[in-house]
């Protein structure tokens, strides 16, 4: 039973990370109908920023909590700046182009950012400092759940609640929903659509940065390629849940994370992807729009 709970909890940790990244995919898709393939790279840049900032701060002898706070903040700001800039450079000029063009542009951006980090940093795995401490009060449960798992889980739940509130109750959230439902009409009621799209990219990138810092600290090493793998998985989770739907991103991530965890635990870690993607295929056969996605019926 303990083993089951352990697998379940580690599955939840995975799910949380997927969810933090999947949200960025799903929000951008919801608002401009684009699959932002460069999103995984934003996550990777968040992790690299965190590594650089935390190392520098440690050299200058900052206290631990200051390092953690400043590192997370720096990663969020830097990643958001990247996400925002990517949108302005690679997607905005193609706003009225056929849908395939921004998609190609996104793939190009992804390759560019990967290679840019590869050249500017290194191709080796770099050790990442443990930014999440081992809590004293967690010691009795350490065999089931680690401190970093707990932090990741709580962070994701907090983010989920805040994001839902933002979208449901604030003026910006309202404008985001309006923009995703009818962009031209949103403009005509006076919404600055470009600004709203920019904000969406910033929020998505900030979430990816948080995910990047958390997972890097959890695993303990990073390289320029982590964004690609994590991005593909999170994208899968978003599609599974119904891309464009925010609750869908959470549900998809949860299912994907748990499946992988149980497959690893009870079968073999070699089979984790086999199970995850078989599940994806199965769900898409029966619900092509994903679990919570709306199948759009074109009215004639």
């Amino acid at each position, binding site marked *: 039973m303990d083993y089951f709970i352990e697998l379940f909890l580690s599955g939840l940790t995975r799910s949380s990370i997927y969810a933090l990244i999947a949200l960025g995919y799903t929000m951008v898709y919801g608002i401009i109908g684009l699959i932002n393939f460069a999103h995984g790279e934003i996550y990777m840049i968040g992790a690299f920023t965190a590594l650089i900032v935390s190392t520098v701060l440690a050299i200058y002898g900052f206290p631990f909590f200051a390092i953690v706070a400043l590192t997370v903040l720096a990663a969020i700001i830097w990643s958001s700046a990247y996400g925002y800039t990517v949108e302005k450079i690679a997607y905005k000029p193609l706003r009225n182009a056929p849908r395939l063009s921004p998609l190609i542009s996104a793939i190009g951006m992804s390759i560019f950012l990967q290679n840019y980090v590869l050249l500017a940093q290194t191709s080796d795995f770099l050790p990442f400092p443990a930014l999440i401490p081992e809590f004293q009060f967690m010691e009795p449960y350490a065999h089931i759940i680690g401190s970093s798992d707990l932090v990741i889980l709580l962070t994701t739940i907090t983010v989920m609640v805040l994001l839902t509130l933002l979208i449901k109750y604030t003026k910006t959230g*309202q404008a985001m929903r309006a923009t995703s439902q009818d962009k*031209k009409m*949103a*403009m*005509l*009621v*006076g919404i600055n659509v470009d600004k709203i799209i920019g904000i969406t990219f910033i929020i998505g990138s900030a979430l990816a940065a948080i995910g990047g810092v958390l997972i890097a600290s959890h695993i303990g090493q990073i390289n320029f390629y982590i964004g690609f793998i994590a991005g593909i998985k999170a994208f899968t989770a978003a599609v599974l849940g119904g891309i464009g739907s925010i609750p869908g991103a959470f549900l998809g991530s949860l299912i994907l994370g748990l499946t992988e965890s149980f497959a690893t635990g009870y079968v073999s870690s070699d089979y984790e992807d086999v199970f995850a993607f078989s599940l994806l295929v199965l769900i898409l056969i029966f619900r092509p729009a994903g679990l919570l996605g709306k199948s759009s019926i074109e009215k004639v």
Partner: protein
Amino acid sequence: MKIWAKTLSGKKSNMELLLEINSLTMDFGGIRALDHLDMQIAKGKIVALIGPNGAGKTTFFNCLTGIYTPSGGELILHTRDQVVQKLNGLKPNQVTKRGLARTFQNIRLFPSMTVLENVMIGHHCRTKAGVLGAVFRGKKTRYEEARIINQSYEILENVGLSSFVNEFAKNLPYGAQRRLEIARALATDPQLLLLDEPAAGMNPQETDELNELILKIRDQGLSIMLIEHDMRLVMSLSEYIFVMDYGKKIAEGAPEKIQNNPAVIKAYLGEDIEDVT
């Protein structure tokens, strides 16, 4: 801007001018959809724009509201505070901010938002709170939100939708959806309301209600320009009519004059039937 204000104030003596359209032209490739249109729209009037299908009426609205950028000509708005502004080249949200609002021929509500939200969103361009304000919810933001909600209720009551407040827009009956579109446009606090075939698909009773609503809006001091094919509605409502055909203005004047204008009859009915009517 200043220079404009001066030159225009010289000839403004005859009436209170709201919108001046000078030689407006719109080309799509080789097709001239609007051909040197000249119009003057007075403040506080109901003006109709009629013409056969494909005459360029909706294109005209699209140019006016910033969806298309006109190929030539000028759109000049006289705002409430006596400032003269050029509208061409502005983005739709900027045009809305300057006081033009519109509805569409085919209804374009935000289907998965409630009736109240649809109206609240119209207030967007008139509020100041930014993203940070929304996140931290200071006193000002909360006050502003309360005010928006109150105003939205007021508008909904005005158009007779107060019983639907928390319904999703897509679940409303057809006539109510049309009125909601008008309510949302009103929420942007416009000077000029552009209605693109507001009575399309309505039954006679709904049309009568619409008629009343438009008059009510006019009496609150707004100017209204409508595109409409329902001639009974056009003739009973409008104080001035512009007629278009093939992108050109072929006639303008009071309803009685337009009804008997040979050019208009020709455009609608064809060449030979002229004598019959």
